[in-house]
């Protein structure tokens, strides 16, 4: 694994959680759809099997809350939504990331 691949691993580790929280920002999401949506994000390359443990961890941490709803044409559906704690964390994470990217871009601009 080269230096670039190492860097990618680090970025993805930090970003995936942010992606999940952003996906749930402002709306409740059906688990199956959420998994499908995130697994289709280019570059994120997350498998569906990976996301369920992460969602579970976020729920344990209190950042997301879940509810089950019976469905007439299939299995019961599990809906995910941000908790108050999750929304606060998301704000902070987004703000931090924006500042970080902005700073990176400034440096990049100088180098260019």
């Amino acid at each position, binding site marked *: *694994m080269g230096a670039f*691949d190492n860097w*990618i*691993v680090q970025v*993805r*580790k930090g970003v*995936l959680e942010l992606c999940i929280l952003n996906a749930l920002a402002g709306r409740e999401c059906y*688990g*199956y*759809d959420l*998994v*499908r949506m995130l697994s*289709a994000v*280019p*570059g994120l*390359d*997350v*498998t*569906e*099997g*990976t996301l*369920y*443990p*992460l*969602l*579970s*961890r976020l*729920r*344990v*941490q209190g950042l997301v809350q879940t509810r089950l709803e019976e469905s007439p*044409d*299939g*299995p*019961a*559906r*599990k809906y995910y939504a941000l908790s108050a704690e999750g929304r606060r964390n998301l704000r902070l994470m987004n703000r931090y990331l924006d500042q970080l990217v902005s700073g990176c871009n400034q440096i990049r601009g100088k180098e260019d």
Partner: protein
Amino acid sequence: MLAWTPEAREEFDAYGRQIRPRLEAEGADPEEVCADLRRHIEQEQSVKGEQLVTAPAVREILLRLGEPEALAAWAEQPPNPIAQKPGDPQEFGSYHIASILFGVILPLGTILIEAFTHMCAEEFFDPIPSWRHLLMVTLVPIGNLLVILSTGGGCIVPRRLLGAASWLAIVISAYYSLLFLPIAPLGVIMIIAYGWGLLPLAPLFSFIVAIMARRRARLACGPLGGFVYGVGLAVALLVAADIPTVMTQSAMGRAVLSPDESTRARAIQFLRKHGSRTVMERECYGRSGDVTALWSRPFFMPVETANARRLYYRVTGEHYARPDAVREWISRGDIFDFDADVAGGELVGPVQKRLALASSRLDGSLAADGAFGYLEWTMEFRNKGEWETEARAQLALPAGGAVTRLTLWVGDREREAVFAGKAETTRAYQQVAVRERRDPVLVTTCGPDQVLMRCSPVPAHGKMKARIGITFPLLIDKPDGAAMAFPRILDRNFEIGADMKHAVWVESRRAIQCKLAAMKPENPKPGLFALRGQLADAELGAPDAALMVQRDNVQVWSPDPVTTGSAIVQRIETRPANTPSMAILVIDGSAAMRDAAAPLADAIARLPEGIPMAAIMAGDKPDIIQPPDTMNKTLLGKVAEEIKKEWCYTGGADNVPALMLAWDIAAGRPGSVIVWIHGPQPIELSPAARLIQAWERRPGAPRLLSLAAMPGGNRLLEELGDRPEVETVPRLGAIGDDMQRLAGRWINPSPILVRERIDRVAQGEEVSSHLARLWALGEARRLAANSKDRRPALELAANYRLVTPLTGAVVLETDAQYQQNNLKAPVAVGIPTVPEPGDWALIALCLGALAIAWFRLREKRCAA
């Protein structure tokens, strides 16, 4: 809740046990994750429509969900290239290629092939009879393409739109799959036998691909939705595409079969405004035709073909097989090459697409002082088809004329006709033409100044050549001149190409003129005037093609070719004004008359005052637009205004009720006349039996003068044709001028030709034996009208070689055929030619005189 097989549970539990330690290490709840994964598996199976979760399915899904690892392990994996996006070519596999091939390219290609070749329409039924159907079926490959592309890695359009497109493709392809189901096995057989035949299977393949692609798209994009929009739109399109057919069929049923007259009338009005012409045309050929009719036909009372043809004329005012419509119709495969139903019969029938008039020439000679002419019309037919077929044409003769010669080319030999009773000649023709399939030609009358020519059979990829000779009187409308109109084709079952021209040559010893610029003057010999031209068929029938010839009022005579020692003498007398006691104008309200209405109205406004007159408009119902009254300028102006109303001229009008009404008005007034001003009557809407009965039963009944505004077949005149009370008004100019000419004879003295047979040497100028034939024609008519015994009239007409209502002319191929049919084989004596024998003698005399003059001049010069 889906059921799990024990093996599936075991598979899943093993997986759970394997990942549990890692999940705990990551801080996740193992129970929750396992429950989530279980729901995920059930969801996928549910989307696939499965009711049971099996071990292989669990294994396949878990394998796709990813290695049984937790976040830490995932993060350590090397990433895939970011450039990978849904629908990228990299995502394409054999499934996508096969789906696009069978769900997009095949249906699209099938649609294009059918739209351009009408392959299916010709052989089975028309799957895309209108642009609406074309639009609808084109949506199937488009919908399939959208869904297939979305299975590559996610929706390429909003999911609801994708779902709607998917349902649209499913419903429409299912509909067409059902319609094509009966011929789908044929496609399979063709593929097995020849390796091709996919087209009939295109709807079925499209349907299968649409179903499979939808399932895949649901896996790729999640639930698609769009059921209501997709199915709703598909149903709306099907209804929109099919509703004109259904409405037309329903209205046709009501228009023909309803016992209520007002319902029938309303249905006809509906068809005129909203009816599908294509659907009505198809019914005229007894073909269900388009795709809608396959299922809708059982819901409506069937309309018989004959009724459909009558209805088509009532609605449109056009014949269902009019020549200018045939090409489009052929492209749909609805004209048959072989019209066995009319072969040998009295009907002209529809145009045969591979039978054409290859050449036509008219050679005429006018005896101006004798006020008659003779014209030979040679026609050659070419059959490009695979079947031999009969050529039929209805010809209008110059007014008062008769066919006096008929020739058929058998190989290079010319065979002349025998003239005999109409029944005998017709029977012989049918025996030889229809049963023995040999080469006869038959000419019989089919109305006043009309004949039907039948040539059979024109061989496949071959030609047939025939000639008819017509003897006719010239129309004397002024003391020093006479006029003639060319014969013309009224109705035919062969095509006349746009580049086909009639080669015309007419000559006379008097100066002749024609308004048509295409007719060029010639002066072939001293003292001989000629006009020549290449005339299109429409030009030949146009009033402008009439010829004017100078003449002197002299007594002429001709030896009687039948009775030795007798002569036929003709002199001109002046007949006093023949004012009718009542003139009833019957104006045909058919659509074909629309252009003639204004000039006709102007002519009527200028008719002379003081004549008792009535006027009836023959529309859907007869309408008396002017009750019987003595005409003055005000009333004539009122009639003219009524005639000008354009709304009167819609569809095809049944003229029989209006003529019957006119007959009722005229019957009580001896010396009355019905002037029937009409367009073509290509379809018999109601039988003329009532009219014929009226004329047969009442002596001194009114005369019927037929003034055709334009050339065309006239079934009603055919029916009335043998009645002596029915006459045609010669067309020598604009309809207004001809109307004025007719009215002029009502108020002014007019010249009349009187012919008689005498048993002594006659005084005056000797002319050809055509004069004798014209005398015989008049005499045969007189005999037929005044005696119940038709034999003398028949024998007279046959002896003088005349085609009359009682006689016909037939050419058979061999003498044996004449004997078998109790007919005398024709002899060459007495057969007329152009120029006439008398003219040949005159030309020889002139040449002799010139030779003598030349010798004398030479002698004088030598002496000098």
